[in-house]
């Protein structure tokens, strides 16, 4: 990983020195354990702050939206797919971005690490090959990376960047090892009552901070439906009806566009697993339309176009 950090820094410096781009978007070291921070480097000196670790849990495509300058961006598989999505949806032009493609090592779920150390305060976490070194005031322990990856990283289907102007490091294994179709819809096999119960449980702690929405490169609407008041589609309370409306509608707005990058779950301050909705919807899109988002600049996301041949399995006549 340190090698990749060096490669990112030198590529960034070169691009800035040659004035190929106005800034390089990557990560710099965070001040809390297991969270690097999105960072714009404008000068070769600033490029020395760039890092690449298993704690890069945002989706950098999100920070490209609305920018007028030429940006080089560090992008592993999912992020590059969201860049494709943004270009398809005309939020970004291909010429404006310079993609520094990477293979993703699979990112760490900090909550899973913390769960291994109940009652103990983690002061710092370092990477050491396939292990993490977890440090507290009075302890140091090792954790295997493969036990604490984010759920979405186990079932990732495209770990290598799908578009890039330059690929840094080696291309690697394409999948995370797990099969997304087996876990995409954990509630499909439940009875109606159980399913409702699971659904209620899943979202009961939501505080409607909208971090999941604001961290997501699909949610770039100038005015989100939850912020509209004429008509008011969704109430403002944290009562069930309003919380559920928000989550169901948001998930549907992401259908056929979500790359399962996991930024939403990583951002949530209370540990909500909102991928339980989006991964089910993406499974439906694969089954109904044979489409996976963000793989091809020339294709059109299925829910953005009407075709008389569109499947309608839900219509019972």
């Amino acid at each position, binding site marked *: 990983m340190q090698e990749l950090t060096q490669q990112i820094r030198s590529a960034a410096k070169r691009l800035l020195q040659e004035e190929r781009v106005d800034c390089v978007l990557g990560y710099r070291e*965070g*001040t*809390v354990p297991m*969270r*690097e*921070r*999105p*960072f*714009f480097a404008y000068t070769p000196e600033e490029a020395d702050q760039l890092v690449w670790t298993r704690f890069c849990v*945002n989706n950098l495509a*999100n*920070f490209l939206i609305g920018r007028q300058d030429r940006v080089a961006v560090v992008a592993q598989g999912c992020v590059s797919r969201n860049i494709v999505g943004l270009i398809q949806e005309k939020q970004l032009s291909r010429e404006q971005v310079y993609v520094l493609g990477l293979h993703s090592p699979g990112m760490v779920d900090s*909550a899973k690490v*913390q*769960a291994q150390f*109940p*009652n103990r*305060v983690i*002061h710092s976490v370092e990477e050491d090959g396939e292990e993490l070194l977890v440090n507290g*005031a009075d302890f140091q322990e090792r954790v295997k990376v493969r036990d604490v990856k984010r759920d979405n990283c186990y079932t990732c289907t495209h770990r290598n960047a799908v578009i890039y102007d330059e690929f840094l490091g080696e291309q690697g294994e394409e999948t995370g090892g797990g099969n997304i179709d087996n876990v995409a819809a954990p509630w499909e096999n439940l009875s109606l009552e159980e399913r409702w119960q699971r659904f209620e449980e899943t979202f009961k702690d939501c*505080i*409607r*901070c*909208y*971090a999941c*929405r*604001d*961290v997501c490169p699909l949610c770039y609407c100038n005015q989100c439906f939850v*912020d509209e008041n004429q008509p008011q589609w969704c*109430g*403002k*309370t*944290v*009562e069930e009806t309003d919380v559920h409306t928000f989550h169901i509608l948001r998930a549907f707005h992401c259908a056929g566009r979500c790359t399962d990058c996991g*930024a939403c779950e*990583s*951002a949530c*301050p*209370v*540990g909500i697993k909102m991928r339980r909705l989006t991964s089910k919807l993406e499974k439906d899109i694969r089954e109904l339309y044979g489409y996976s988002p963000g793989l091809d600049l020339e294709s059109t996301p299925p829910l953005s176009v009407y075709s008389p041949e569109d499947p309608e399995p839900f219509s019972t006549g």
Partner: protein
Amino acid sequence: MQDKILDKSEVDALLERLGSEYDVYAPLRDQQGSVEWAALDSSSDLVWDFSNTGVSPKRFVFPQTECMMRFNNRSDDPEGMIMKQEQGLQRQQALLNIRPCDAKALKALDSIYCRDQTSNDVYWRDKREKTLYVGLACKSPCPTCFCTSVRCGPHYEEGLDILLVDLGERLLVRTLSEKGAELASNLSDAPDEAKQQAAQQKEEAEAAVRSQVGLENIQSRGIMELYEAPMWDREHESCLNCGVCTYVCPTCHCFDIQDETQGEHGRRVRNWDTCMSWLFTYHTSGHNPRGTKKDRFRQRFMHKFKYMPYKFDVIGCVGCGRCTQSCPVNIDVTEVVGEMNEPDLN
């Protein structure tokens, strides 16, 4: 103030006394293993070793969603469309093992919600008066805590009725108000050795607070100088303008009021709102006085570290570090405040 002593094995007796008068809430371990505020059923659920809850307990005084009034949504009814105030809290509540910083935060908010006749928020006041605050001093502050820099600390007492200091098998019970003294009246006085142990813990805990911020330059600078400082251009860059920092914060207190109707029923509710959202300041005219992300980002820090100290002599932050810990892009409050306090703002 009196120092009493309580064996942990006798906590039940105290809880029984509490329970007869109060609904009792405490930081408890949830199914996912994190410690969050919940109703306390049994003393065996109590957690003594935790840093702090991810979300602050302000909702017990300032619920995220609160019905203020109800009305009959019928204009043809003479009783219709008349707002009727909701009843206040039905039973008193006790916040057990609240961290000193969180109790101080509520005290600080009194200067906004019930300072005088012109700012007398009946909903806030009702719950403030019906709540008992039994604090638990901090033993091992998090790396993100900086309470000692903002007129607070791991054993800070203001805003509490009782402060508990965990001495292992025993608790030192320091009474800080009449209500607190009454609750602890049948406990025996703490021996000197226990008092010394507590005093030493206080010193150690204060020394263990690693993050520090300075505020002296912020205080001496004019509002416009800080407002126009170039630092905001870079500091705000990665901010998502989500609501995490303000919703987990014990001192953020903004809200939005809405009237809702369903058939014949109508109610007026207030919900937490956040200055990070563009909608918060959006005018009906279409003008937005805080129209950019930078404006909104700056507001959060200016409000807490300049406007509140300037207007009320109260810092709008107790140094709990929650915003830093929960921010999805790791905007670190101590870094931003550090920049505001730099000797040279350019």
